[in-house]
């Protein structure tokens, strides 16, 4: 009996350890491994590069974090980002709008998608995964219809004949390509957003209400919280983050690529779930999400240096997501069996 008990205990503390420090340990191992095989890896230039490459995914993932905090999920962030990308580009290239409108209008688009998601989930009661899956297709369809399937670039030829009048302005491109105080601008934006999300989620009344709604909606209601409004807000926030990611992407690439967001969805979701287990938080959190995005970014950067074929990257991303989920759910099962 005692031997079995001891074995269980070791197993349990093993899971505990994995849950608390697994992500960090993984990060250290990855960094050590890649620096041992490539000199180019552990350089300042490469690290700012990594940070810049994860800035867009991190924004998306922050949106997903908010929906997970309230006990929901948002699969439509990738499509929303794609839509925002082409809308941003088109506003400048097709319609020559001023910069402030070019920033505001895509964010409005994100808000609309968020409101529609909320309507489906909160008002109609469709399960979050299914509702946002449908929205993912609808929004993706919209963005392709809007662009007629073409990417949008400076003075592009139009299907109606002639060329587009506008260009992406220098000021706009600075958002995605400029540098400030030794770091690329997108990195500053990302760090700023991570900080804001962290403060809101962990140090404000709103954050408390968001977490409690996700933790036990019934108890939150009986404590006077209007949980429907809270969920509504979370999906709108997710839409806003996705559209910001889209704007950033356009500025970074210098054109409105179609389907820009589709491959980012998986990375964003994986980042959030890796983030669950950072320092044993056990719940979605802003710092963890950033950390998760970093783990994935570093991994992909290293694999690029190793010259792994691009097509194989999805395998790695999928494996990271699966391992993060495994750790999270095995731990959750443990935790619930203790309480039940």
């Amino acid at each position, binding site marked *: 009996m005692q031997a079995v008990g001891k074995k269980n205990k070791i197993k349990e503390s093993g899971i505990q350890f994995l849950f608390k420090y697994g992500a960090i340990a993984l990060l250290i191992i990855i960094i050590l491994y890649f620096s041992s095989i490539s000199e180019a890896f552990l350089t300042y230039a490469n690290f700012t590069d990594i940070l810049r490459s994860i800035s867009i995914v991190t924004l998306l993932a922050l949106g997903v974090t908010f929906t997970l905090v309230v006990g929901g999920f948002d699969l439509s962030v990738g499509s929303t980002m794609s839509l925002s990308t082409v809308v941003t580009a088109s506003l400048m290239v097709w319609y020559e709008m001023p910069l402030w409108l070019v920033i505001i209008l895509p964010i409005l688009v994100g808000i609309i998608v968020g409101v529609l998601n909320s309507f489906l989930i909160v008002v109609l009661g469709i399960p979050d995964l299914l509702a946002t899956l449908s929205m993912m297709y609808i929004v993706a369809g919209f963005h392709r219809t809007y662009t007629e399937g073409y990417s949008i670039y400076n003075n592009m030829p139009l299907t109606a004949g002639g060329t587009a009048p506008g260009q992406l302005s220098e000021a706009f491109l600075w958002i995605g390509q400029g540098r400030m105080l030794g770091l690329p601008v997108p990195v500053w934006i990302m760090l700023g957003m991570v900080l804001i999300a962290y403060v809101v989620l962990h140090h404000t009344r709103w954050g*408390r209400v968001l977490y409690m709604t996700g933790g036990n909606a019934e108890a939150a209601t*009986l*404590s006077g*919280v*209007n949980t429907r409004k809270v969920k509504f807000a979370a999906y709108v926030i997710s839409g806003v983050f996705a559209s910001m990611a889209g704007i950033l992407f356009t500025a970074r690439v210098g054109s409105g690529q179609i389907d820009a967001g589709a491959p980012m969805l998986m990375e964003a979701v994986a980042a959030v779930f890796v983030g669950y287990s950072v320092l044993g938080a056990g719940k979605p959190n802003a710092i963890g999400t950033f950390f998760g995005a970093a783990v994935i970014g570093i991994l992909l950067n290293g694999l690029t240096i190793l010259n792994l074929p691009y097509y194989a990257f999805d395998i790695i991303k999928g494996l990271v997501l699966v391992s993060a989920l495994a750790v999270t759910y095995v731990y959750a099962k443990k*935790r619930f069996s203790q309480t039940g």
Partner: protein
Amino acid sequence: MVSPFLSMNAIQKSFGHVKALEGAQFQLVKGEVHALLGVNGAGKSTLIKILSGVYEQDAGDILIDGQSVRLRSPKAAKEHGIYCVYQEVDTAIVPELSVAENIMLDTIATAKNVFLSMPKLYEEARNTLKQLQVENIQVQQPAYKLTLAEKQLVLIARALVSSAKIIIFDEPTAPLSIHESDKLFSVIQKLKMQGVGCIFISHRLPEVFEISDRITVMRDGTLVDVFQTADATAEEIIEAMLGTSFHQEQHTRNYPLGETLLDVKELSDGNKLNNLSFTVSEGEIVGIVGLVGAGKTELAKTLFGLVSLTKGSVKLSGKELRVKHPGDAINAGMALIPEERRKEGLFVHESLQTNASFPNLRKFSNLLFMNKSAEKSFAKDIIKRLQIKTDNTETPLVHLSGGNQQKVVIGKWISRDSILYLFDEPTKGVDIGAKADIFRLIRELAESGKGCLYFSSEIQEAINISDRILVMYNGQIVKEFSRGDATQERILLYASGGKEE
């Protein structure tokens, strides 16, 4: 006397340190309806779960037809012809399947052949329903179209198809209308005639007298007495259920009551609650007592705005209330300590201080930012005031005992300084020591001029704490007792639908 078909002798069952059954006995002859009665915690449901194979007894034996049997699983119990019709029929019905498939479910599940003949299935199902004389139920329609009462009949039919010898009815009439109950009773009579032994559990005494042949009364996990229904009186039965009722010290109120605080007039929720009127004064503790399913929780939730009322008015401190959401009720000065503590009252994976500050986040934040040190000192404050046994305000609540969790549920309202407290079964699953603390706290609240509504099915506890007791039965208030007049016997009589001559 006829030798019993089923005989359960000297049954023991413990859960951890708690003895649920000790030397319990029960006997059933073929073709009788045998009622099993007892107050909450008497061990009825444990005994029934042992009989239907959900639990296995620690000691004692079960004889069927003189043969000793072991019922290790619900499947084993079914093989011996023991079937159970639970109150929550929906858990046993597959809503998308047809009525016929639902009736034949056990047969289908164990059948060896791969293909099913639908006509044969319908035929057999129809025959079974005919035996019960409820052939008006269409066997081809999907089961979700049925009413609750019809679903019950489907379950009975399922038992009959599998040639059940014993059918357990666990509070079958609780969700039924009077007409539907009558129908059920005539079906039970049919079963009786076919030689099926029926075990009937109900909180409603008039029904028990109407339908049963014998009554077994249990108390504290053991047999008290077996009555022939024809010779028994309601008073006798109630006395047996309660035993020599020990009277705990009652506290006496030594201060005058204030103004009327809560004034409820002709409240209905269009569902369970029907035309309730009552008042609560400042400083008063009003007990609302009723058996399970009497509508106490519904009343608490309606007052608190979780369910909207369809008729009637609620006044708090003289002001007409229109609550559409618990938030409105809280702002008006109400606090609810819900029945399902873990499900409705707490965030069990969060810390004590997070839980405690939640109903009043504005008080614990500057502008938008949480003031964590204020939260902590409030948490320490209620730990001290309610004598919660923990040394750390950061421990997740899962690690606390039920009683201490309950104290947090109560304590979290203190920062709001509410004027009316609704306690829904606050002592459920709480140990003796914590119970005393909770009672003391409720009295303190009343002494400081708050109004308290105490919803409970624990009659003695309600008598001890309340200034006045309202008895609920079937969604209505059927009797009011002052503290002096209230006895367990009288309350239980009214709570089970009886009346004094």
